[in-house]
């Protein structure tokens, strides 16, 4: 086990081009489970592959256990990686697949067998040790890939979207299994995903990347409650946070023709005459529009209702400005229908304000 440090680590594919990973700084503690998350092309996989030694570190350093990894080949880094498509050796049996890293390190046959057996026991693969990967289901292949990583007892686990090829149900169960196993083994883990649910549920801390740059590196709760900028706010949370860039008025902000009053201490943070306001879907209070608008509310018309059982999502547009869409999360079976008039009021003081130019949190 070891800590992992990205120190201004950068990767440029072609000279002069925009870096795929741009001066990334991360300090990952020993035994920590860190998730790299971001949209496609954000550089999260590249960052992981730099740590694995599959991509060059063009600038800066990556240190594992204090040792600088620049120029160190993969096989000398003492890491194990789980690939998105599992990357099992098709011509080897499950047992030989799992024993391969041990064999490459010159571990004797008896110890190999013992360790493979132990790992297969944990993963429920004992009955499949003599099969070829072709004869396994997706979930089983995924577990073989995990097993191949576990037998190594490496310093760091690297996982590159290991769940994205599983069906939805399998993904949920494997998600918890991986998280539980990581806690038990206590091995430092870096996990890449584009799925924010995986990021929020699995990681001790989550690093959100966009365009090769680190946006925020925080615990899942802080990422949700205190997004560092408008991008993080929009990326984390499903449905996404409502973000409006609005003119500032005397007592709050103007949204459409109505005025949204803001608490004084929130308002004091605004400097310019416009501001980006973020309100999560669950931070809206909904009133029926027929009962007369309450002061400070926003009138809207429902376009679509997504009923999920426990909750319902209302997708609406503002009465005054049909271009502005609003998402509202309400209790399930609220009876709202398409075309209903509703009045929305923010229920929480925890509103998010961002600078409209830079996107930074105010």
């Amino acid at each position, binding site marked *: 086990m070891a800590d992992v440090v990205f120190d201004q680590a950068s990767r440029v594919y072609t000279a002069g081009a925009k870096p795929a990973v741009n001066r990334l700084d991360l300090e990952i503690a020993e035994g920590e489970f860190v998730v790299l998350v971001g949209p496609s092309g954000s550089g999260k996989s590249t960052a992981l592959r730099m740590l*694995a*030694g*599959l991509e060059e570190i063009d600038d800066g350093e990556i240190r594992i256990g204090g040792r600088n990894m620049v120029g160190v*080949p*993969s*096989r000398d880094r003492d*890491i*194990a*990686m789980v*690939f*998105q*498509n599992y*990357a*099992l*050796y*098709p*011509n*080897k049996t499950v047992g030989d697949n799992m024993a*391969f*890293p041990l064999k*490459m*390190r010159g571990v004797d046959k008896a110890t190999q067998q013992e360790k493979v057996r132990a790992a297969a026991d944990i993963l429920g693969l004992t009955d499949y040790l003599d099969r*070829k*990967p*072709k*004869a396994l289901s997706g979930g089983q292949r995924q577990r073989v890939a995990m097993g*191949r990583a576990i037998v*190594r007892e490496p310093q760091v686990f*690297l996982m590159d979207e290991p769940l994205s090829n599983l069906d939805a149900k399998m993904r949920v169960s494997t998600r918890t299994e991986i998280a539980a196993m990581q806690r038990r083994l206590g091995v430092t883990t870096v996990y890449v995903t584009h799925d924010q649910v995986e990021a929020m549920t699995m990681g001790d801390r989550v690093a959100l990347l966009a365009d090769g740059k680190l946006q925020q590196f925080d615990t899942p709760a802080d990422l949700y409650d205190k997004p560092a900028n408008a991008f993080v706010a929009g990326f984390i949370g499903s449905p996404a946070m409502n973000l409006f860039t609005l003119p500032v008025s005397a007592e709050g902000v103007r949204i459409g023709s109505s005025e949204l009053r803001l608490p004084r201490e929130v308002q004091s943070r605004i400097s310019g005459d416009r501001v980006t306001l973020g309100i999560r879907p669950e931070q809206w209070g909904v009133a029926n529009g027929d009962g007369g608008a309450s002061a400070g509310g926003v009138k809207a018309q429902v376009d679509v209702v997504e009923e999920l059982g426990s909750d319902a999502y209302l997708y609406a547009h503002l009465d005054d400005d049909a271009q502005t869409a609003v998402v509202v999360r309400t209790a399930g079976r609220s009876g709202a229908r398409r075309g209903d008039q509703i009045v929305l009021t923010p229920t929480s003081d925890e509103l998010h304000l961002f600078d409209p130019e830079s996107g930074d949190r105010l």
Partner: protein
Amino acid sequence: MTVTEQRPAEIVPRQPASAGREGWIRRAPLLPALIFTIIVTQLPFLFTIYYSLQSWNLVRPGSAQFVGLDNYVKVFTDSQFRGVAVNTVVLTAGAVLISMVLGLAFALLLDRQFRGRGFVRTLLITPFLITPVAAALLWKTVLFDPTYGLINFVLSPFGAGQTDWISAFPLTSVMVALVWQWTPFMMLLTLAGLQSQPHDVLEAARVDGAGSFAIFREVTLPHLRRFIELGIVLGAIYLVNTFDAIYMMTQGGPGTASANLPFYIYQRAFLGFDIGQSAAMGVVVVIATIIVSTFALRLIFRSFQTEEG
């Protein structure tokens, strides 16, 4: 009344209407090709069997007479025939295996990125595009010739430029020319295999601690197995019939030192005019080839069936 009540309990597959007639309409356009194939391959074979039972010398008209299996007895007691059969095996196996090893080596080199890769690849493929007769002539005169040959020219500074390569090593010389022509074919096949290899498996092997040689032995070579098998079988099918290179370079000589079966049969039929004898040889070779190629084809199909998942 519900619809389900009217249906039989068991579900049977629906028969396509008039499958038989449709089938024949579809097959009919192929018939001319089938008939043509029978005329040009099966009828000559039947004639050959008929000739093989005759004693018939082309230069003595009216000499044909039925001799039963006499020709076959002569084939099996002919030590030259056995020697030529050994030549055929050595030439085919040697050329195929050497060109496969070289082709694999070139493919591994071409599988990496470097400047001018496309140009180098084209150059390496070129020998395969040259007419076999021209290639043989090229080796015989430009390279192997004792007086003008480039090989002796290059070797002369080292004091070893006097060898008449084709006279001294006739079978090896022919094999060298064949290897030169067939290496690109093997290279293309194995290169296709290398490029169809998933990158993440190679990366996984690197992370798992394998060095370059271990990756080749443990991951790449097993992946290439079916490409190599295919190359060997296809190469053997073509090279067992080699005629042009031998005809151009050595005429099978000295004696029959560099003759293979097709060339020896040609010699016996059209230079020795012994139709009965050469027909019997042809029949023996065809039967032997069928036996060998049955195993070879089985190998091909097996390697196609065990596709990896």
